[in-house]
């Protein structure tokens, strides 16, 4: 096998997940896809497009419109030896299933003293910036990261989306897979023969020396743009794509901050009790003498996600992140 012979394909993030699900369905008969409209329609974002046609209604299952039922029955199927990958149609619709995820899915391995494993993947298209109506633009990852027993990941690009989905399905732990819906159509090269990075390891996507920008999911692209803009002003920003919110790769952040001395965390989720708060606290503990400035955060406000005409003001954008970068560098 040579790299040339299996050159990667350029594909959109949504298509990469589709390909990854297809591969999982092909290679493991226990893998099931479940969710609302995932069959004939292929999901409202077409992420499961064509899968029911090729793998049948028994494996790609259109479910009743009941999220608790979707996750609850997925738990039962996992108890029977299946590996269900369930789709929650939109971020704001996950809450009927929150009880099953928090009280049952997350705790079963511990309460069975390790005798029961629940390899369930819960896919959630999340985040804003698409001009949607209420409950279609939220970023609830912190509400899940607070729960022991769950693993929380979010890819930022098509290649990671492909590989991280493979790894999530292979995981014996339940994984909440947050898909950055505003990046669904962004293309990147996906090489199905590559050797992927470990699922919960952060990646330096741009090296720099003056300040560290940390993001995941939809905000990684923005942070790259911020780094480009800052470079024009002669500032060298390092961008770290966390990829995983739980576990969180503090070692990689620490290594970067020990080099740069400054850290700005960016996420769409509200700043208050967000993942940035946890990162700020731990990095302050780990890097106290390396820090030249307090850890700053850029994210959503402590207000309901606003109507679409206001979302550009609510979400982190180039100027808001640059403003935080300026404030950090001014210390």
């Amino acid at each position, binding site marked *: 096998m040579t790299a040339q012979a299996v050159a990667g394909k350029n594909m959109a993030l949504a298509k990469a997940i589709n390909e990854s699900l297809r591969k999982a369905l092909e290679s493991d008969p226990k893998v099931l896809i479940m969710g609302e409209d995932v069959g004939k329609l292929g999901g409202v974002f077409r992420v499961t497009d064509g899968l029911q046609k090729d793998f049948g209604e028994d494996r790609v299952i259109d479910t009743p419109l009941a999220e608790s039922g979707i996750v*609850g029955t997925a738990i039962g*199927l996992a108890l029977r030896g299946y590996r269900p990958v369930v789709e929650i149609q939109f971020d704001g619709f996950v809450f009927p299933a929150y009880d099953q995820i928090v009280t*049952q899915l997350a705790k079963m391995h511990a*309460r069975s*003293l390790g005798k029961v494993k629940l390899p369930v993947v819960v896919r959630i298209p999340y985040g804003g910036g698409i001009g949607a109506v209420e409950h279609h633009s939220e970023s609830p990852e912190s509400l899940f990261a607070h729960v*022991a027993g769950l693993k929380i990941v979010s890819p930022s690009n098509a290649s990671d989306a492909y590989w991280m989905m493979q790894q999530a399905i292979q995981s014996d732990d339940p994984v909440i897979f947050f898909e950055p819906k505003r990046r669904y159509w962004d293309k990147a090269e996906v090489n199905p023969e590559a050797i992927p990075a470990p699922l919960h390891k952060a990646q330096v996507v741009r090296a720099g020396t003056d300040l560290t920008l940390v993001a995941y999911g939809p905000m990684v692209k923005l942070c790259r743009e911020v780094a480009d803009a800052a470079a024009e002003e002669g500032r060298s920003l390092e961008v770290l794509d966390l990829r995983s919110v739980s576990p969180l790769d503090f070692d990689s952040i620490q290594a970067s901050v020990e080099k740069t001395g400054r850290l700005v965390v960016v996420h769409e989720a509200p700043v208050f009790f967000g993942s940035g708060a946890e990162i700020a606290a731990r990095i302050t503990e780990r890097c106290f003498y390396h820090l030249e400035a307090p850890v700053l955060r850029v994210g959503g406000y402590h207000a309901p996600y606003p109507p679409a005409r206001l979302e550009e003001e609510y979400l982190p954008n180039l100027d808001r992140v640059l403003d935080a970068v300026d404030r950090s560098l001014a210390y």
Partner: protein
Amino acid sequence: MTVESTAARKARRSAGGKAGTTGTKSSTTGTKRTTSRTAAKKAPGTEPELVQLLTPEGKRIKNAEYDPYVAGITPEELRGLYRDMVLTRRFDAEATVLQRQGELGLWASLLGQEAAQIGSGRAVTDDDYIFPTYREHGVAWCRGVDPTNLLGMFRGVNNGGWDPNSNNFHLYTIVIGSQTLHATGYAMGLAKDGANSAVIAYFGDGASSQGDVAEAFTFSAVYNAPVVFFCQNNQWAISEPTEKQTRVPLYQRAQGYGFPGVRVDGNDVLACLAVTKWALERARNGEGPTLVEAYTYRMGAHTTNDDPTRYRHDDERAAWEAKDPIARLRSYLQSQTDTDEGFFAELETESEALGRRVREVVRTMPDPDHFAIFENVYADGHALVDEERAEFAAYQESFADVEEGKQR
């Protein structure tokens, strides 16, 4: 140009010229509402049919539909059911006492529900899978789960001390109703596998109000899952009577989902056995879900923390005492079979031995190792758990140093 909806135009028209008509109409609607409410009260639920094969006096009643399911039952098997109920009650009483003595933090007694649990528990086969609530001590007994294993979570040494797959008996579930969805999913899996087995999910009258139970009914019906929903209606959800959960008898809810529901005398072990066998047979035959409502009574408190004197009268309990599940089978065994007094005496001895064993095991049940906090949080590990375990170890270690220092 004004754009308005058809409905808005209609409303304006009636508000215009025909105010009187509108008034009459609304009063008619009012009458209709009252009528329909009365009708609902008189709905088929007033005197629901109850499947009973053994009267409270121990008399066998013929039932063409369900007799076949217990037709071949021998006196030996009947004595087996009796033994199961007596030993379960003895175990339950011992656990209540152990709580009073401070050996258990809490106990949820099944007193009064022995027939519902033993009857249904003996109807399942080894390959069937059971999803209990937290009160199915009798079903666990039928399943061969060591009763002392059930006590770990009530003592606070674990959150479920048995391997669900070794007895096909899932862990106790405290968030009521959640397990009905797990049961449905498991049954969907059985159907996919083409397995000739079924699932039974236990829940109570209180849990019947949970959305998860409604969703389990929906999913199981849509996918024709081989699952039996076994609802023990013990009349009380802590302090709330069944009237606070439903306007129709619970078994009738099944109709709305498109599968059969049956109310069985939950204090009649024979009827519970027969009806559950029937429901499981339906599941195995590919006929989908069934709802069984076992009409019974929680003779004790909700748990040892509860005080039923605050919300119910003693005479209600007395009335149910007359329908005791164990007493009626004893009458039947004594009058209709060759069961001699020796059997009862022997069982009494066995009962006491069980009580003694439970007592001894619980009292010597060790506290878990401190590091158990961090065990099994994840199947594949988690960096933060490792980090916090190390911090905890260092903290514990610091105490050891101090103690050693003092001794020196």
